[in-house]
């Protein structure tokens, strides 16, 4: 057991890939001498050299597309999109190409491409730099979407991604990089499509992923002090989505709140709430509730941004309401 940061976990996962698999190379903007916009690849350039750490032009579409082509040729490129906000410039390559080539070729080609990117609000970088599009990627057949909330999950999930023959969008959260957590020293893996019950409880189920999974735990802490025993489910991957673990929890608690960071209308939380009521309708004492970001672009001013996204206390408040307290 060691305690490392989320950033260190990503870096370790990348190092393992580079060390163990010669087909792996990294492509991205400023991942070289600069060390990555979030310092994830600090030192990589010196360690692995420019052949395997490819600093790229500011050409999101071209670097993702180059990853698609290299993957079709049998390599295992890992392309970094500096933030998910810039993925909008690579949407065509991700959705029209990476996700569909296996299918359109009748299974002749596969695209084992990993796209790493950074999601989330809360960093005071305003509307164009605070979005969360992982839900969009999760709606695309052909893609897999991984949304780890802890150093442990980063490592375990990343290792599983390396065994896949399909494109993965690996989504890291800007506010989680410096959070710390225990990771086992074993070479453990966490399969995709397996949500985690990160806190057991009998009264209500709080469902989240990435940073919001942590916010759910904070809320659960607060609630426990008020005699409410909340269970927390961390989805860990959005596609594949493990609804069974969620359903099992709700069968037990009879109440559920889905928490997400992006604005509510059209958010992925609707999918989760919808599936819960489809799966365990008869077990629900109250409707599945959702708490999400405000129906607005993310503002720069910190006091506004803070109320624009769910926090432990707003989640706890809704939970109390649902519990009728």
């Amino acid at each position: 057991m060691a305690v490392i940061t989320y950033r260190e976990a990503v870096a370790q996962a990348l190092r393992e890939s580079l060390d163990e698999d010669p087909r792996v190379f990294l492509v991205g903007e400023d991942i070289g001498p600069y060390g990555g916009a979030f310092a994830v690849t600090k030192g990589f350039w010196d360690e692995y050299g420019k052949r395997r750490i490819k600093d790229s032009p500011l050409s999101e579409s071209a670097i993702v597309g180059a990853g698609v082509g290299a993957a079709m040729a049998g390599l295992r490129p890992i392309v970094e999109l500096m933030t998910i906000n810039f993925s909008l410039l690579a949407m065509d390559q991700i959705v029209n190409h990476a996700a569909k080539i296996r299918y359109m070729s009748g299974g002749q080609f596969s695209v084992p491409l990993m796209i790493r990117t950074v999601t989330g609000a809360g960093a005071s970088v305003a509307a164009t730099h605070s979005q969360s599009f992982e839900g969009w990627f999760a709606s695309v057949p052909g893609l897999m979407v991984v949304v780890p909330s802890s150093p442990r999950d980063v490592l375990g999930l990343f290792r599983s991604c390396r065994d896949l023959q399909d494109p993965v969008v690996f989504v890291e959260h800007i506010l989680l990089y410096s959070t710390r957590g225990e990771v086992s020293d074993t070479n453990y893996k966490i399969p995709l499509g397996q949500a985690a019950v990160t806190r057991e409880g009998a009264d209500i189920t709080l469902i989240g992923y990435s940073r919001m999974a942590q916010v759910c735990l904070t809320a659960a802490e607060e609630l426990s002090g008020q005699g409410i025993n909340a269970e927390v489910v961390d989805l860990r991957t959005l596609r594949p989505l493990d609804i069974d673990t969620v359903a099992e929890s709700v069968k037990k608690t009879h109440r559920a709140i889905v928490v997400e960071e992006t604005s509510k209308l059209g958010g992925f939380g609707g999918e989760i709430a919808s599936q819960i009521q489809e799966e365990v309708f008869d077990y629900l004492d109250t409707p599945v509730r959702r708490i999400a970001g405000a129906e607005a672009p993310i503002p720069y001013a910190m006091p506004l941004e803070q109320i624009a996204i769910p926090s432990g206390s707003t989640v706890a408040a809704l939970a109390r309401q649902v519990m009728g307290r």
Partner: protein
Amino acid sequence: MAIAQLHDLSKVQLLEFYRQMRLIREFERECERQYTRGNIKGFLHVYTGEEAIAVGAISTLKPEDYVVTHYRDHGQALARGMDTNGVMAELFGKATGVSKGKGGSMHLFDAHKNFMGGYAIVGGQLPIAAGLALAAQYTEQERLALCFMGDGALNEGEFHESMNLAAVWHLPMIFFCENNLYGMGAPSADTLAVHQQMYLLAEAYSMANYRVDGNDVLAVHELMLEVTSDVRGGKGPAFIEARTYRIQGHSIADPANYRPEEEVEYWRTQDPIPRFRELLTGNGVASEEDFDQIDSAVDEEIVAAAAFAEASPFPEPEELMTHVYED
């Protein structure tokens, strides 16, 4: 016409060029017939008039080289030696199609031929071709990627990003622009600032660039022999503009009456197949008998392909959910 080549090429090879061009021409004719009969659906973009490009260019490649192209891809697929039956069946949406009927006309693939795909998003194939070239470079294999695109693709941002990336990374690839003067109904004169000097687009990346008569199969072949050896020799990426003309409309749905009659007439006189045929007869390389033999063989192949496609079964319903992910 590039007579020079005549001497270096065997009669067999010259007649093979003719056969391939003829095969593509007749294949497209058959497609149009089958479309009106309802056997081919959706969009149908034929390569008629541009045969000399695919044939002249792809004949210079090695089996391990990668071919990437746009949605007007039947010609390149056949020139690469893809199975005529399998391609026709794909257009019919049959289980025996090269992609099991799942990709259709605009999305042809053949792993055995390193035919890495026809892509229906204009410009979308360029970054992918760069990635294939990157793979060749990364693995230090002497392979190149030949990427076809239409003139319309030069308008897209992905063209710029891919050209720059290829230049900066010195990738072993060839950007081959099939300049048929139109993107759908729009003359490139209205959409591309340097439509008369496309080479300037390559200069913007200080990339080697060339221009060739796209209706002269020997000229295309000759140029590609030079360019491919440069690229294999590590000279980095190259850009080629081949002037040609889309004899038919953009798609079968397009009567193309936005084009001046004289223009259409002029280009009819430039039809690459009669031109090449006359060259060979004029130079006594081949006789009418040679051509007749080839023509009837091609006709048989096409008839057989249509019959094969028609007789083939549609994919089973289960196929809907296969190949979404690794099965």
